[in-house]
């Protein structure tokens, strides 16, 4: 587990940067093509995550931030930024 805390990154209190940093670190484990992971990295298009891996990523994120991420939002999630924004909304 990473040690990212709520206040670890300065993001004007919105949390967005924290979520982004958390996701980027978590995704390193799936970075088979050694791409540079950032906001615009596509979970499936760039990292080639399988649906099982996406669900694993979601579960780890849910545990870490104590939230539930509804399946309904997944069709709108393509990039790391999309997911970070959804987490921000859910915690808002």
């Amino acid at each position, binding site marked *: 587990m990473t040690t990212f805390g709520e206040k670890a990154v300065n993001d004007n209190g919105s949390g967005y940067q924290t979520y982004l940093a958390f996701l980027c670190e978590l995704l390193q484990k799936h970075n088979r093509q050694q791409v540079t992971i950032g906001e615009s990295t596509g979970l499936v298009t760039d990292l080639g995550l399988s649906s099982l891996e996406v669900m694993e990523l979601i*579960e780890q994120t849910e545990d870490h931030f*104590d939230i539930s991420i509804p399946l309904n939002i997944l069709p709108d999630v393509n990039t790391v930024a999309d997911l970070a924004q959804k987490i921000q909304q859910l915690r808002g």
Partner: protein
Amino acid sequence: MLFDKFQAMADFQTELSRRDVKPFGAITDEVISATEGVVQGRRVILAGTNNYLGLSYDPRCIEASQAAAAQWGTGTTGSRLANGSFAEHVALEAEMADFYGVGQAIVFSTGYAATMGMCATVAGPDDVILLDADSHSSIYSGVKLSGAEIIRYRHSSPDDLAKRLRRLGDRAGRTLVIAEGIYSMLGDVAPLQEIAAIKREYGAYLLVDEAHSMGVLGETGRGAAQAAGIEDDVDFIVGTFSKSLGAVGGFAISRHAILDTIRYCIRAYIFTASSSPSVVASVRQALRIVREEPERRERLWDNATRLYNGLRELGLPVGPAVSPVVAVEFTDREQAIAAWYQLFDSGVYVNLVVPPASPSTNFLLRNSMSAAHTPQQIDHIITAYRGLLDAGLATPKTAA
């Protein structure tokens, strides 16, 4: 282009068609009994069906079916809400309600329609659905249509379920929790006592799909909820007539009178033709047999124990507990396919399961037992698996 997405499946089918028999959709030429058939020219023991009580070929069910076809004709040609409610359908609903000791039951044309239809209808746009991560396709299809917020809980994890209900706060009271009695791929039983306790604590609702557990578990065969002693906590049970009852069709029952109103809101019930009366008549007869011959359930579990112990003693990677579904896991795809063919050549038909139908990245040879299997047939199956080990087509679990 439109068809690009099918290419991977086309390639897989081409790969499998190198032999004349395909593991998916092998053709049964002849049914010899509930447990034996001729599949593409080869006589095999059927160990990949869901014929748990062996009722698919029961003379009493066949006779009831024939008589009903003669009396009512071959089909209803219409929906239950139009011309398709015959006295047979209504009688079966009354008998299902009576079997479950509740006030109302709905009969559907397939189990898939029953599960999908109920999951699509009971919770709506302002509600939440909490479903097990390893839920059957009919559940996933249904909840998608519901318009509800859909959240997965980790497979059979009461702790994870509780956490998610806590996170919902006041909305827990508008939440439908969904679980299956026995999960069809690995044969594991849901921890329904724990799930029911959590559901009660948070004031949520519970729907249990007993497709693989009705007729199989519980003192009178009502399923996993009965076996767990938590039927009073279950708001809706759905299930199928295609497995233990040996026919086709599905049902929903509830202790809530509102089920009779929900009936008129389920598209998968309204906009499809009702079951053929001959099918309904055989289900009614099969249900009578389930009630009158509990020894079938005992025989099923004896058979399951024999197969499970036999495969476990060979060192094969089977699940943690005896179940009528005994799955052997493979990590290697080629090995799993080759093993399927060798079992077939040894006269044993089982199910090959590939992701995403299997709950992980593993491949499965899924064996299902029937009350109608003989000890000799089960020993033949075990011997065929020993042949896989001898041929290097299966890997024993390292010292369990």
